[in-house]
């Protein structure tokens, strides 16, 4: 991946490590026209975000708590009052879906944010210090990568006890190694540049060189990887929640809604709507991630 990859969407006049670059909206519009899937992904994502923001006014019923339960209408198929049916406690599935957006999307973002921050720090330090520090940090990173993501997250979440916060911690622990490995490679590729040598020659401290000079020039591919990764984080978060290691069952969350319905397989509406919501959201995010990668990777554009 190119280190200057964001530049195709920004006016490429900025010298290395100069702060904000302006977005070139004409280029963005051109790219959207070129890449219809990216546009579809953005529209779907905005749709979900709006749902999350306006869940209170959109939801026809109470999503949680005693009021939400309706013992007269347990596991009823979709009708006029409950367009997506009701669940095992008589709660309105549509309302729970709408509120679920508020939990799923931020959780995915937080996992990526924490995971990339920790991973990038570890990778940057390993790449910059080199030698035995590099060896040690990378060995530890590889060990964490020997576990499939959701398995490691499952073990950690099981140890910490099920809750939304613990699920995010567990996923972060499973997530950072990928960023560590990538950041190390990026730092290694930026380190030999002359501007790094120049900063050193004016007597900059090592943390300054690493975090103010090298990192800003290595960060672009990490940002691309983050956009590619958010869909996956949401997928694994839903999986963890499906395993019963996510949010409390009273809290409306999609993966957990699917899990609580597998005992009532014949009542398809109980798993179909939450399941398709996850799929739709993740697909949209993957469309966006792919689009961003296509735009920023000149090697792919050529092909």
């Amino acid at each position: 991946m190119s280190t200057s990859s964001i530049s195709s969407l920004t006016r490429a006049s900025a010298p290395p490590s100069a702060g904000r670059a302006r977005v070139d909206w004409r280029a963005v519009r051109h790219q959207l026209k070129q890449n219809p899937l990216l546009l579809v992904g953005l529209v779907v994502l905005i749709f979900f975000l709006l749902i999350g923001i306006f869940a209170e006014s959109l939801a026809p019923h109470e999503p949680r708590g005693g009021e939400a339960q309706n013992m007269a209408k347990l596991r009823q198929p979709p009708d006029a009052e409950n367009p997506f049916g009701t669940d095992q406690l008589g709660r309105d599935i549509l309302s729970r879906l709408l509120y679920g957006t508020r939990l799923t999307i931020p959780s995915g973002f937080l996992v990526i944010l924490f995971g990339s921050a920790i991973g990038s720090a570890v990778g940057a330090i390993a790449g910059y210090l080199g030698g035995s520090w590099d060896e040690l940090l990378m060995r530890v990173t590889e060990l964490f990568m020997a576990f499939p993501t959701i398995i490691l997250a499952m073990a950690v979440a099981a140890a910490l006890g099920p809750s939304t916060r613990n699920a995010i911690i567990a996923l972060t622990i499973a997530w950072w190694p990928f960023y560590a490995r990538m950041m190390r490679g990026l730092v290694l590729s930026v380190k030999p540049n002359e501007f790094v040598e120049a900063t050193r020659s004016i007597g900059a401290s090592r943390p300054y060189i690493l975090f103010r000079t090298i990192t800003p020039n290595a960060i672009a591919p990490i940002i691309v990887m983050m956009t590619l990764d958010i869909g996956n984080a949401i997928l694994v978060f839903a999986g963890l929640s499906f395993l019963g290691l996510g949010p409390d069952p009273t809290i409306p969350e999609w993966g957990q809604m699917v899990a609580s319905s597998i005992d009532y397989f014949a009542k398809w509406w109980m798993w179909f709507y939450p399941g398709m919501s996850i799929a739709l959201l993740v697909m949209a995010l993957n469309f966006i991630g792919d689009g961003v990668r296509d735009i920023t990777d000149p090697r792919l554009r050529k092909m």
Partner: protein
Amino acid sequence: MLIHTYLLRRIFLAIPTIFGISLIVFVIANALPADPVSSFLPNSALENQTIVEEFRRKWGLDRPLHEQYLSWLGNVIQGDFGTSLRSKRPVSQDISSFLPATIELSTYAIMISLTCGVTLGVISAVWRGMPVDYLARILALIGVSFPVFVLALLGKRLFAVELEWLPSGRRLDLLLRAPPGITGFFTIDSLLAGNWRVLQNAISHLALPSVVLAVFSMGFITRLTRSAMLESLGQDYMRTARSKGLRERIVIIRHGLRNALIPVVTIIGLSYSSLLAGAVLTESIFSWPGIGRYAFLSASSQDFPGTMGVTMLIALIYVGVNFLVDILYFFVDPRIRAA
């Protein structure tokens, strides 16, 4: 390099990894929970102070952590993962009875995902920009986006309930008896026993779960093969091969695909691990008696020893598969032999 030297070197490299994995699992199991006693003992026993004290002493929880690790490691090496809170049997016994079902399922799934993924990837790269390329790319993107448990539910609903083409769960019909256990693979065992009815039945039970499980890794194998193939197709050796007058099919398969295969082989290990992770999420939907379902039941019922046992085992399987992949590398990449 000779294959012996290569293998020995790989084995030596795997040993520290295995120790590291055991250390991570130990830390998760013993250092992370605020109070390990409460995660191992059922709630009813926690109220009794004598039981808690006795439990601490018996499991050495009053000793320093590094001593605990060494004695735990000693037990694990002897195959002792503790006793499952849910089944009340030793975790190792549980795991060894459930493992063959998962290995059989994931082996078929990886074969399906490799065959379909590589084929789709090659087609998509060769006819780049054509409708078939878009179709393959969208299929692959859907494959990596769909939660495997939702796909399992949809597949079961469509093929087992609506169309009634395939059975909805288990490894065999209830009335059939399992073939004599030699490999633990029902398909191979029934073949060895010459029992065609069981073989046919086992295959029909495998079809749905293995395809569902394969979809995710098929998606990312397709994407990877496509980009590796595109890179390979643009190389000079392709022009050389064509200018020699070779037929296009031979050029693409023997020169293009052969060189694109190296990155594909690299991610077989990763795909296999994603299949095992997928098994945890799908096996219970298909009532498949494997370690995935065991992990699901352990995790969702807070059975801590069971969860840790499966975690350790899956990481070890992953190391083992990567070892096999390294051997495969030796044959696919001639540069290793030359080194």
